[in-house]
């Protein structure tokens, strides 16, 4: 630390901000302990799409693992992952795994809720496209083509009378959504301008779909067929940032 920095200690200007964030991450779900077969099968996957696995952070899930894993087994596992370009950042499983995680300097995360999708490696064509901007690739971006659920991103205002549908995936709108317009998605809907039109998430029946918006001023919101109209919506969190999800048979609106 320099003397200048010492003087600065009294300065109240924040040096950092604490922020919450969500990102997609690849999960390696281990089913049985067989290091040789793991190495071989992983090599096969990597060969299909080398770019996809380059410097990809992964979470190793031990929830489905039947037999015990010792520290030697874990270290062997981690080495195989790293040899193939994967970067294990955390383990996931019950509390029993904490000593193991600490020994391997990994984070231990609580068990998931079983909502992950099975990832398939990207098609060869998709991979060819992905290879060009390799330097700029983020792990989250690399994971997108693999999911097979294209996210639709709209940057222009959605005007009255317009309808935007994201089949098989999420819809993200970075502009105002006017009254008299309609957003539809098989997955989630995110709106970063005011949401004044209709938003219908999970239109093909996905009850886990949600609607996220910066300012709730919608005419109607719906998740998997359950809906609320403006008259009901006005009573709570009107014009606030909220997320809307399905809670049993009714819509739950919670502040973001």
């Amino acid at each position, binding site marked *: 630390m320099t003397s200048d920095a010492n003087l600065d200690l009294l300065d109240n200007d924040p040096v950092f901000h604490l922020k919450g964030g969500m990102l997609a991450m690849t999960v390696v779900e281990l089913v049985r302990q067989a290091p040789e077969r793991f190495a071989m099968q992983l090599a096969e996957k990597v060969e299909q799409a080398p770019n996809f696995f380059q410097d990809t952070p992964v979470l190793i899930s031990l929830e489905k693992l039947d037999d015990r894993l010792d520290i030697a087994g874990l270290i062997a596992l981690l080495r195989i992952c790293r040899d193939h370009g994967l970067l294990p950042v955390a383990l996931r499983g019950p509390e029993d795994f904490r000593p193991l995680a600490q020994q391997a300097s990994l984070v231990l995360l609580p068990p998931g809720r079983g909502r992950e999708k099975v990832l398939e490696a990207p098609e060869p064509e998709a991979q060819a496209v992905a290879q060009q901007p390799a330097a700029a690739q983020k792990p989250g971006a690399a994971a997108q083509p693999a999911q097979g659920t294209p996210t639709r991103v709209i940057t*222009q*205002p*959605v*005007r*009255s*009378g*317009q309808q935007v549908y994201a089949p098989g995936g999420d819809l993200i709108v970075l*502009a*105002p959504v*006017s*009254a*008299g*317009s309609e957003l539809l998605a098989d997955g989630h809907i995110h709106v970063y*301008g*005011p949401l*004044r039109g209709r938003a219908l998430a999970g239109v093909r029946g996905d009850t886990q779909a949600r609607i996220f918006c910066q300012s709730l001023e919608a005419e109607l919101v719906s998740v998997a067929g359950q809906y609320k109209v403006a008259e009901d919506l006005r009573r709570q969190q009107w014009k606030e940032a909220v997320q809307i999800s399905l809670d049993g048979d009714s819509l739950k609106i919670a502040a973001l």
Partner: protein
Amino acid sequence: MAKILVITSGKGGVGKTTTSAAIGTGLALRGYKTVIVDFDVGLRNLDLIMGCERRVVYDFVNLINGDSNLNQTLIKDKRSDNLYILPASQTRDKDALTLEGVQGVLDQLKETFDFIVCDSPAGIEKGAHLAMYFADEAIVVTNPEVSSVRDSDRMLGLLSSKSRRSEQGDRIKEHLLLTRYSPERVENGEMLSVSDVEDILSIPLLGVIPESQAVLKASNQGIPVIMDDKSDAGQAYSDAVERLLGKEVPHRFLEAQKKGLLKRLFGG
């Protein structure tokens, strides 16, 4: 390079024709060769606002059908050498317009004019669609009132999806013109404010035209209101033309007139 400008709104009666006449005249007075084209076939009004109704011989539909040529059909404005009017047909309806026909006429006009101002009919049907289809820029005329704002929003959606530029992956440059604005009524909460409308439509503001007696007077006399440079509406339209040409002019007439001390004492 000729620029095609459409004056549109969706809703009727908000001031499209008044605006077309004012903006067109304003451009001509600043030295640009300008033609105002009336697309409202069947409900011809522009000739009245421009005061040239007695000189209409041929019209837009005649021109499209080849019954007349451009020189015969265009009416030269008496006030400016740079200004011409292409009147609509009063005896036909909007089905008389065709995409190819409109394109042919606009292509001819492009050869001689700097600005082609298209006065769109109300609605979102064929006439309005043809008026905006070939446009480079659009002025969306809106009254500070919810139904007008919603219709304008709908029209903005069509501009960005059903125009030639949008089909080519380009965009029409959009401008918002708020007309019949009354700051007093905004203060009393009876009218949407400029910021309310800007918030909903989120396009750049070209101008705010105050509610004014001068507009009705000008229409009845057949003189575009922009010629009345003593009126607030005329000045506001002049400012809008300057902004359209790329100059930065501060917005006026947004605040209610404060009553003076004497007026307040004696109830002016």
